[in-house]
C-alpha cells in the first residue's frame, strides 16, 4: 500500500564528497573555462568531427554556419577547454543559440551530448564577464530562484498566474523586449496572445488528493510528477493523465511538496538552483514505495532522468540510481505496463504526432507514444515528415531568438499541414503551446493536443472530476 513511509532511510543522504569537491579547484581549471560547472573534457573529446550531426541540427539548417552546428559547438568548447580560445561572447552566444533539442545526440556515432555541454557553457556564461542586461537579471532571478521553485507562490501569485495564463511561455517567447514595455503595451500584447493559449483552469495540484485510488484490479502504485507548466497551463491534461493511470489500475500518488524539476534552470545556466530542486525532489519521492514516477512532460522527464549526473557527488548514488530507475514518461509507462483497452471508448480522429525533442532525442522514446496511439480505439495516426524535428519552442530559446523560432515553426507547420490530419498531437507542454500557436497563426482548422487529453477522452469514467 502506498502509505507514506516515514524515515525508513537510515543511511546518510549525502556521500562524503560534498559540493565543494564536485567543483574543480582553481588549480585544475579546464583551459579557459571557469572552475565552477565546467563541462566535462571527456565529453568534449568524444566528438570525432565526422559531421554526421550537421543535417539534423535546426540551427545549422537556419544559418549554414559551422559554429552554429553541433560539431562546431563541440569544437568551440574544445578550443576553450584547451585554452586556445576565450569563453568569448560568440562562444557564449552559440551556447544559448543551441536549441538543446538533442537531435544531434540521436545521430551521433560517438554519442556526444552537445546539448548538455552547451548547458554548461550557459552556466559559465552567466557571470561578470557576460553581464545580463539590466532588469533581465532581476527578472531571471525572480523567476528561477523565487517563483519556479515554489508551487504555492506560482499558484497564488496573481502576477505569475497572469503571466502563465494569458501570456505564458508564448508571451515570453514573442517579446524579447518585454521589460521595456509599458503596462498599456503589455495589455495589448496580452490581448493579441489571448485565444492562442489554453483556457485557464484552476491549477490542479490543490484540487487532487495526494492519493488517487486505482480502478478495477490494482496493478501497482505510481507517483505522478506534476510539472509547473502542466499544472498552471494544462491542468486538464494532468487530470487526464491521473485519471488514465487510475483507470489502468494504479494507485496514483501526487506528492504536494514536489517542486519544479529544474529544467528551466538548466536551460538558463542556473545549475545551483537546479541541484537544490533536484535534491528536494529525490528526497520527496523516495519516501514513497513506488513502482514508477510518471510524468507527462517530456522536458521534466528528461531533466529528472539526468539527476544522476546533476547530483553526482551531492547525494548518495544508490538513491540517485533508485530515483532514476523509477522515472518514466507516461507513454513509456503505459505501454510498458500494457494498456487495458477493453473499456476504452473510441475517439474518432486522425492525428499526426510531433515527437518532443526531450522525449525522442533526450530520452530515446519514439515507439511508445505511437503504440499508445494505436491502443486508443478510433485514433488513426498519419505520420508527418520530420516528426522528430524541433518545433522551435525550446524553453526560453524563442524568447532569445524570436525570428528564428518562427522559422523553425514554419518548417514544422508545413509538415503538419501536409498530413491533412484532424489534429497534431504531442507529449510536452512547450511543444503543445508552440504547435497551438502555429495552428492559430496559420489559420488552420487543425487542433493541437497533448496526447493524454485524447487518451483521457477514451476513459469510461473519471477518478478526478473536472473543476467546479
Amino acid at each position, binding site marked *: 500500500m502506498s502509505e507514506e513511509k516515514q524515515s525508513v532511510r537510515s543511511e546518510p543522504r549525502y556521500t562524503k564528497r560534498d559540493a565543494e569537491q564536485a567543483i574543480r579547484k582553481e588549480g585544475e581549471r579546464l583551459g579557459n573555462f571557469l572552475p565552477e560547472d565546467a563541462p566535462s573534457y*571527456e565529453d568534449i*573529446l568524444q566528438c*570525432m568531427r565526422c*559531421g*554526421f550531426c550537421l543535417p539534423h541540427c535546426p540551427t545549422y539548417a537556419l544559418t549554414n554556419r559551422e559554429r552554429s552546428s553541433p560539431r562546431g559547438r563541440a*569544437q*568551440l568548447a574544445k*578550443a576553450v577547454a584547451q585554452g586556445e580560445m576565450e569563453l568569448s561572447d*560568440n562562444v557564449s552566444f552559440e551556447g544559448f543559440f543551441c536549441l538543446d533539442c538533442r537531435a544531434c545526440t540521436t545521430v551521433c556515432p560517438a554519442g556526444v551530448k552537445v546539448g548538455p555541454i552547451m548547458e554548461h557553457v550557459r552556466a559559465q556564461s552567466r557571470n561578470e564577464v557576460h553581464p545580463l542586461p539590466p532588469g533581465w537579471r532581476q527578472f531571471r532571478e525572480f523567476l528561477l530562484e523565487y517563483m519556479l521553485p515554489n508551487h504555492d507562490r506560482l499558484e497564488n501569485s496573481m502576477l505569475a498566474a497572469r503571466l502563465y495564463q494569458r501570456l505564458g511561455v508564448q508571451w515570453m517567447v514573442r517579446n524579447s523586449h518585454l521589460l521595456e514595455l509599458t503596462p498599456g503595451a503589455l495589455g495589448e500584447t496580452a490581448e493579441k496572445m489571448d485565444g492562442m493559449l489554453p483556457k485557464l483552469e484552476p491549477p490542479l495540484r490543490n484540487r487532487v488528493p495526494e492519493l488517487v485510488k486505482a480502478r478495477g484490479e490494482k496493478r501497482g502504485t505510481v507517483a505522478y510528477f506534476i510539472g509547473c507548466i502542466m499544472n498552471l497551463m494544462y491542468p486538464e491534461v494532468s487530470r487526464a493523465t491521473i485519471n488514465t493511470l487510475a483507470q489502468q489500475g494504479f494507485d496514483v500518488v501526487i506528492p504536494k511538496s514536489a517542486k519544479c524539476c529544474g529544467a528551466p534552470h538548466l536551460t538558463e545556466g542556473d545549475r545551483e538552483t537546479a541541484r537544490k530542486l533536484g535534491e528536494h525532489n529525490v528526497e520527496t519521492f523516495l519516501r514513497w514505495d513506488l513502482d514508477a514516477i510518471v510524468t507527462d512532460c517530456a522536458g521534466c522527464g528528461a531533466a529528472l532522468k539526468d539527476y544522476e549526473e546533476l547530483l553526482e557527488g551531492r547525494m548518495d548514488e544508490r538513491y540517485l540510481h533508485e530515483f532514476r530507475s523509477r522515472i518514466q514518461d507516461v507513454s513509456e509507462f503505459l505501454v510498458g505496463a500494457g494498456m487495458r483497452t477493453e473499456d476504452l471508448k473510441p475517439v474518432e480522429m486522425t492525428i499526426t504526432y510531433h515527437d518532443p525533442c526531450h522525449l525522442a532525442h533526450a530520452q530515446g522514446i519514439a515507439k511508445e507514444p505511437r503504440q499508445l496511439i494505436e491502443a486508443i480505439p478510433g485514433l488513426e495516426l498519419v505520420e508527418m515528415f520530420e516528426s522528430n524535428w524541433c518545433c522551435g519552442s525550446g524553453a526560453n530559446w524563442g524568447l532569445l531568438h524570436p525570428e528564428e523560432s518562427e522559422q523553425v515553426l514554419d518548417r514544422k507547420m508545413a509538415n503538419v499541414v501536409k498530413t491533412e490530419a484532424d489534429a497534431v498531437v504531442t507529449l510536452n507542454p512547450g511543444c503543445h503551446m508552440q504547435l497551438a500557436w502555429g495552428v492559430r497563426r496559420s489559420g488552420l482548422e487543425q487542433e493541437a493536443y497533448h496526447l493524454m487529453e485524447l487518451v483521457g477522452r477514451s476513459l469510461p469514467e473519471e477518478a478526478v472530476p473536472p473543476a467546479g
Partner: protein
Amino acid sequence: MPSKLSAQAIQDLEQRLGKEQVLHEKEDLYTYGYDATPELSGLPDVVVFPRTAEEVAYVVEFANENGLPLSPRGSGTGLSGGSIPAEGGVVAVMTRMNKILEIDEENLTATVEPGVITLDLAGAVAARGLFYPPDPGSQKVSTIGGNVAENAGGLRGLKYGVTRDYVMALEAVLMDGSHLMTGGKAVKDVAGYSFRDLLVGGEGTLGIVTQVTVSLIPPPKAKKTMVAYFKDVATAGQAVSEIVAAKIIPATLEILDNKTINSIEDYVSIGLPREMQGLLLIETDGHPAEVEEEAAEIHKVLERVGADVIRVAQTAEEGEDLTAARRTALSALARVSPTTILEDSTVPRSELASTFNEIARLTKKYDLTVGTFGHAGDGNLHPTALTDERNSEEIKRVHAFFSELYDHVLAVGGTVSGEHGIGMAKIGYLERQIGSGGIKVMRRIKHAFDPEGRLNPGKMFTPELQEEVRA
C-alpha cells in the same frame, strides 16, 4: 587570432559577395579549420560562400591579389584533411551552391552544383525511378563536389564502382580565373586529355569544381541480404575470394572483425555471437530471378568454405535486421575511446586474409586496440585505432602501427588509400606507393594548373615543386 586580412579587403569581399557570405570572426575561422580527420587542423584568414561560378572566379581573383592560399570545402566530412586550410588563407565553402539543375531522363544524367548533398541527389533521381549508386559513409552530409574531389567510394563499389565511374562532365574555375568545361553527356568521348579524370580525385588542388554532370542507371528490382559468421577471419577472406571466383559480383560484401562484433554487442546487444572472428554481410541485387539464383550460389560457396553460421533474410525487414550490425559498426567503435583513427588500407581481394593477419600481429606488437571493418569485396579495409589523443605516447604507436601496416599493403600490391584520399594525412605514404618519379609528374601537372601553388596547398605532396619545375 582574428583574420590577418585588412578591414578593407574584408569589406571588398562583403561588397562583392554580400555580408552573409563572408565570415571572419575568430570563432568562424576556428570552425572552418578542420574536417573529419583526426589530429589535423588549420586556421583560415577568411571564409567565403560563393553562390555562382562567377563568384568563385572573383574569389580566385581575390586570393591572387592578396597573395593568399585558397582551399575549397564542402561539408568537411573528409578523412584525409583534403579541405583543411593547411596554410591559412581563404576557405571557399561550396555548400550554398546546392541546386540540382537538371535530371535528364533521355540521356540518364543529372547536372548539379557542387554543394548538393550526395543523398539529396540520390533521392531526387530515385523519385524519377533512377539510381545514383555511389554511397560514401557520409552521404547524408557530404557534398557531390567533395565526393568528386576525393573520388569517394562507398559500400557499393564492388558492383557499381565509385564516384569517378559516374562523373561525365565537370565545370571548374582555374587559378587564372578561366572557366574550364570538360566531358559532356556523350557516352563516348576521347577528345584530348581527360581533364575530367584529373579533377576527379584531384583533391581540390587543380581547380574549383562549379558544376557536375553524373550518369544514372536504372535501379535494381530486387535485393537479397545474408550474413555469415566465421570462427577465423582467414576463412572469411577466402569466402570473399571464392564468391567472386564463382562469377558473382554482390552489390555489398562487407566484413567486420571480432573486435568490431564485440564493440557492437557491448553497445546495442543485438545478439551477435561474440566468439566469432569474422562477419560477412552480403547483398545481391538485380532482376528477381537472377537475385535468387545468385543467393543460392553464394549460400553454396559459404557452406563449401566452411562458414560457421549462415543466415538468409526472407523478407526486406529481416534484411534490414541483418544489416544492423554493419550500420552500427562505426558508432560502436567510436564509443570505445575518445579518439577514433580510421584508416583506409586497400589490398587486392586475394590478400584480405594476409592483411587481417598482419593487422592482428601489429595490434599485438604495438599494444593497441584496433577494430577492423570494411568493404571486403573491394579489399578496402578500415582498421580503426581506438585511442586517446591526450596519450601522445600511444598516438606515436598508432602511427608506427599504420606505417608498418602500409609496408605490408604495398608489398602485396595494395594502395595507401582506397577512398579517403591523400590530403595532409598520407603525404608520406603516397611517395612510398608511387615513388619519387610519380610525385615529380604530379608536381608538373599541378604546376600547369596552378603555377603559384596557391590552390589547396599542403595536400598530396610537399610543395618543393617550384624550383624543380622551373629548372
